[in-house]
């Protein structure tokens, strides 16, 4: 006589399965969105980077030709250089400025809320609008900056329109958007326990030592977060340069940034395969920089609850 094994489903397992099913159902919009709008484009970009493709018809497989083409592309090298130049100067500069501003705004002064609002407002102005305003501010012949400089007998440069000055001017323009990281630093500063400052004072620490030994270590995870964010945004720098400079990358290719060149290849010249190779390289680049930063962060980032 044949016997049949019967698996009895216990109520606990049933409940657990129902909960899992419900959980999956709840997160399914995000999962579907992630797969359709991130995962698929990611792998499609990787595939197209090995092809010639104009957006119409079938992509033609070319192997590594797009990648080797990038190695021999002088404009690509210029774009890479300009992007690194901007990033290497802009990230420390803006980090120091945002942190400095947050420290000042964290001081107990009269009208503190007004100052905080004033310094945050610029970051909510649309980037295109602020870029056009800065074209006028830095206008060499009738802009306010050069007018002020001429008051002290200095002939100001042509700023956005001068080869040596164009990138530094974009770095200055970057200060306009400091409100966002500043608010994050401000929140972090307010989370530093007051007792630590009291102990430091009792130990005889001066303002500089309190900043170095208490404030910076305590907010170092936030600094790391902001630096990574700032790095990624700097490497992908595009809108301001695209709005201000015509033709793209001018004067003399000095503002041809990585994404500006990518945009030109993809949407002006319709070299979607070549642009895909650029996009994938950019992803690798950002990934490497982020991993290196995270690995080295163990030396300078302090996590209060971390067991070492």
């Amino acid at each position: 006589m044949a016997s049949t094994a019967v698996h009895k489903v216990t109520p606990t397992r049933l409940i657990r399965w129902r909960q899992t099913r419900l959980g999956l159902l709840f997160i399914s919009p995000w999962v579907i969105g992630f797969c359709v709008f991130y995962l698929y484009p990611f792998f499609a970009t990787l595939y197209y980077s090995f092809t010639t493709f104009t957006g119409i018809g079938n992509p033609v497989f070319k192997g590594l030709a797009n990648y080797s083409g990038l190695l021999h592309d002088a404009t690509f090298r210029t774009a890479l250089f300009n992007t690194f130049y901007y990033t290497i100067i802009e990230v420390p500069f803006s980090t120091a400025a945002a942190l400095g501003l947050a420290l000042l705004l964290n001081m107990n002064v009269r009208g503190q809320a007004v100052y905080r609002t004033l310094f945050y407002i610029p970051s909510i102005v649309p980037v295109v609008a602020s870029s056009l305003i800065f074209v006028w501010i830095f206008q060499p012949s009738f802009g306010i900056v050069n007018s002020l400089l001429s008051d002290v007998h200095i002939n100001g440069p042509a700023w956005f329109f001068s080869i040596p000055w164009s990138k530094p001017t974009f770095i200055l323009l970057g200060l306009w958007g400091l409100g966002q990281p500043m608010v994050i630093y401000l929140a972090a500063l307010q989370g530093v326990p007051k007792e630590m400052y009291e102990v430091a004072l009792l130990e005889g620490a001066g303002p500089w030592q309190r900043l170095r030994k208490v404030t910076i270590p305590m907010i170092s995870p936030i600094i790391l977060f902001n630096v990574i964010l700032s790095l990624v945004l700097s490497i992908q720098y595009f809108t301001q340069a695209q709005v201000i400079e015509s033709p793209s990358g001018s004067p003399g290719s000095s503002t041809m940034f990585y994404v500006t060149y990518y945009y030109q290849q993809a949407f002006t010249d319709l070299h979607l395969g070549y642009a895909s190779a650029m996009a994938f390289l950019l992803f690798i680049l950002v990934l490497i920089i982020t991993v290196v930063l995270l690995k080295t962060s163990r030396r300078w980032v302090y996590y209060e609850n971390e067991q070492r």
Partner: protein
Amino acid sequence: MWSGNTLTLLSQMVNKFNATHPKIHVTESNIPSATGDAKLLSEIAAGDPPDVFTEWNPVLGEYAADGTIQSMAPYLTGTYSGVEKWLYPIALQGGEYGGTLYALPMGMNSWALYYNKSMLKAAGISSPPTTLAQLYADQAKEWKISGGKLKQIGFYPSYNQGMEYFDSFFGAVNCFDSSGKYDLTSCPGAQAEAKFLASYDSYPYSLVAAMATAYGGVAGGDDDPFVAGKEGFAMDGPWEGAQNIPVTNSAMVGNFGVVPFPNTVGGPSTFGQGNYNIIPKGAAHPQQALEFIAWLAGYNNESFMTSLYPKGGWMPTSPAGAAAPAFQAWLKANPWLNVFIEQMSSPLSVTPKLTPTESEFFTAEATASENIAERSDSWQQALTYIDQQANSGAGG
């Protein structure tokens, strides 16, 4: 792709067409120009393209070569068999690829030299220049720079139009070698043109570019130093006098004149260019699309279309359009426009041949003229750069 006044005109055209063609209904869709091509390509790839798309002609060669757009030849029958002969030769050239018609313009551009009358008088010049040497000498008297600040420009050839817009004045359109590749390096016309651009490199290009950007930025491109009354001479199209000046700076109305741009080709010449309408691959109603496109070009519709040209500052696409009463009335009221219309039928006016890499060629010419102005390239290096970029542009 359009905004402001031009968008209003296009809506008028569509409404008129729908009112006069009960069997066809056109629905207009306005797409920002920065994303227009990407949207078109996506729609074609998805199998749901529009029946008609307005396109900037330099990209037509690439689209025709890879089958993105349809040849109009199968639909040029019956009433429409005469369209090609009806067009100005330069209007036809801008829509042909490999001897086949792929696009029809709905209005043409033409380029000439604008001059500021009061500045000319203040500089003690009795009449506008007729040679390149005179232009250089005259404009030199009009520059005003003090303390490192630019107050007034005489003339600067390439700050708002790249090298390509000057090609026809030097016989530098369609410089190809025997294998069909771009060859500006050994083209005498291109050499003369590049030398002409380089002759202005002693003037402060960075200050000129900054002034042009500042004016362009505040008025969405309708303003520029000439419109603002801060430039003695400018090479521009009819819309500058017909639209930009009256709309942006009415003080300049009556204070400008137009003459043919001095050239080395020995007669009236202009660079042919325009906004062309195309039928994308996979369009559901190609025959009706052609009917609409031909109507927009003014074919059998000269009176209505040319009545709108004064508002857009456009030139007609055909001699029949130029002869239409509405257009003639506009010419009579604005005699300075005659320069533009005379150039349209000149055998020396040329439209660049459509090639699969014409878009890259244009980008390269714009960059090269800027490099000459910035002195980062010699004129010889600039021509080599154009050839390299234009001939290697079909990658990826």
